[in-house]
């Protein structure tokens, strides 16, 4: 059975990775998961300087999902390179580093510092939590294009992935821009901006008022968007959004994802990544599929419906 997939220059031994922000810097989950068995570890978003993040409360559970407004709390580039990356490099897995900045210059500096030292760089252009951050880049197509173009110039040795937001005015148009500007891959979907209210106190549940909705509640939206983007561009897609089981992952794969990322499910069951991987293998065995890549975009459909 061959589970190998290729995302840009990065060869993954299997199509399972983690969603940024849900797996810490890998170490937090090493007690539950053999990191060597993951296709890649995608770490928490890194900014040039350390960030304190938003004031708590930062999370709230909603039906089949959760809101978060962490505000991109992270250790910053220097501490990541010194304290977190060497640990991850001790494992036989790819390292994908999600990066975020307030200016194009910041993104470029991060890309320069990480290029060649990590397997892939994932551009966070769509995090809805920090007012001066991601949302501005993904909500203006000219700036979005310029950002990818400038970062691409500085990512020579690593694979460049752009993470798309489901709240972009046109995700298809953004996917086309990614392809035109030479991004190696797209990851999608980021969380969906959402809100919950405590009716007794009449106050928002999160101190940031708005947070990102994740979890199984958003999965059908993610699957639909991956399907649409898969029909539009040729670069590979890392599908994510509410994957709890191997079946959920296979929906994304049949819709067109080359690889999948497990996010919120890590919180529910820290061993989800391994269960998803095993479930994909079982599915391939049961369906006598030798090569995983034959499943990608394998949805059977016709234009008249179904």
């Amino acid at each position, binding site marked *: 059975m061959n589970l190998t997939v290729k995302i840009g220059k990065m060869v993954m031994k299997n199509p399972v990775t983690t969603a940024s*922000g*849900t*797996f*810490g810097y890998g170490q*937090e*989950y090493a*007690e*539950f998961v053999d990191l060597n068995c993951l296709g890649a570890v995608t770490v*928490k978003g890194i900014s040039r300087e350390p960030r*304190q*993040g938003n*004031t*708590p*409360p*930062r*999370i*709230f*559970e909603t*039906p*089949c*999902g*959760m809101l*978060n407004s*962490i505000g991109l*709390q992270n250790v910053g580039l220097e501490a990541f390179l010194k304290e977190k990356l060497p640990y991850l490099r001790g494992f036989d897995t790819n390292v994908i580093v999600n990066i975020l900045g307030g200016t194009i210059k910041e993104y470029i500096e991060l890309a320069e510092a990480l290029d060649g030292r990590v397997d892939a760089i994932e551009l966070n252009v769509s995090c809805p939590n920090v007012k001066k951050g991601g949302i501005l880049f993904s909500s203006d197509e000219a700036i979005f294009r310029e950002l990818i173009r400038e970062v691409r110039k500085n990512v020579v040795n690593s694979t460049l992935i752009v993470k798309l937001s489901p709240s972009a005015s046109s995700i298809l148009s953004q996917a086309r821009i990614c392809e035109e500007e030479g991004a190696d891959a797209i990851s999608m979907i980021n969380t969906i901006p959402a809100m919950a209210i405590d009716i007794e106190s009449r106050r928002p549940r999160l101190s940031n008022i708005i947070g990102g909705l994740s*979890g*199984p509640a958003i999965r059908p939206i993610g699957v639909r968007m991956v399907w649409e983007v898969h029909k539009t561009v040729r670069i590979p897609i890392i599908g994510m959004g509410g994957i*709890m089981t191997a079946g959920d992952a296979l929906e994304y794969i049949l819709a067109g994802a080359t690889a999948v990322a497990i996010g*919120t499910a*890590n*919180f*529910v*069951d*820290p*061993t989800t990544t391994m269960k998803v991987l095993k479930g994909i293998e079982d599915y391939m065995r049961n369906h006598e599929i030798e090569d995983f890549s034959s499943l990608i975009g394998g949805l059977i459909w016709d234009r008249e419906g179904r």
Partner: protein
Amino acid sequence: MSRLNRAEVLNNIPLTDREFILRLKLPPGSLSPMPGQFYLLRATNTFDPLLRRPFSAFRWSDEWVDFLISEKGKGTLVLKSLRPGDEIDLLGPAGNYFPPPSGDMKLLVVAGGIGIASVFSILREYNGDSVLFYGARSSDALLIRKDIEDFSGEVVLCTDDGSIGFKGSVVERLRLYINERTPEKAIVYACGPEAMITALKTYMKETGLRGYISLEERMACGVGACMGCVKNTSEGMKRVCIEGPVFPVEVL
């Protein structure tokens, strides 16, 4: 020994309409908790409720651990309906713990409402001359009074409505106690609702009283990855699940 296990429900005893004590069988060879540590419980395979729920280890033996839980929403309702023989997911022990007292210190244990669940084990596990200040709205909300009397040197009950004990807050009562007795070497261990914590913090900082407070925050991963459960401290944002739940009062 993994901290992630399946655990059998040994019993589930209602105390009031809302509060109950859930006893889980600890897998053989598993680590025992320390006072103030917690576990993350998940009792369903469906996605609503979705996340594990954190609860302090209330009391334990080598074979089992008890949780004193108040029904607050969907997650706790599922736990309340568990029956002996049911199996649930257990992750823990997690977090730090109340540091044991050194030398012969007076242990001033302060609990508000369901906060007793986090500090009760101090009375069982740590040696020392202890006083428990235990407060709630009214006498019927003061739980497990018999067990408390078995373990605490001295128990001071407080109620908002005066239905039993001192009429007023545990912090007011603590202040009276300190003023009267002026213990030379004392350490506070506390857990309770936000209003109590705020008042206690202010009082302890005013008087230079030393001690530790266990904090509560909504939690997702419970393993230090998601940054969801942080509290703002004088040393920056700290994760309740890893750097907490117990914090020295001076950083709060």
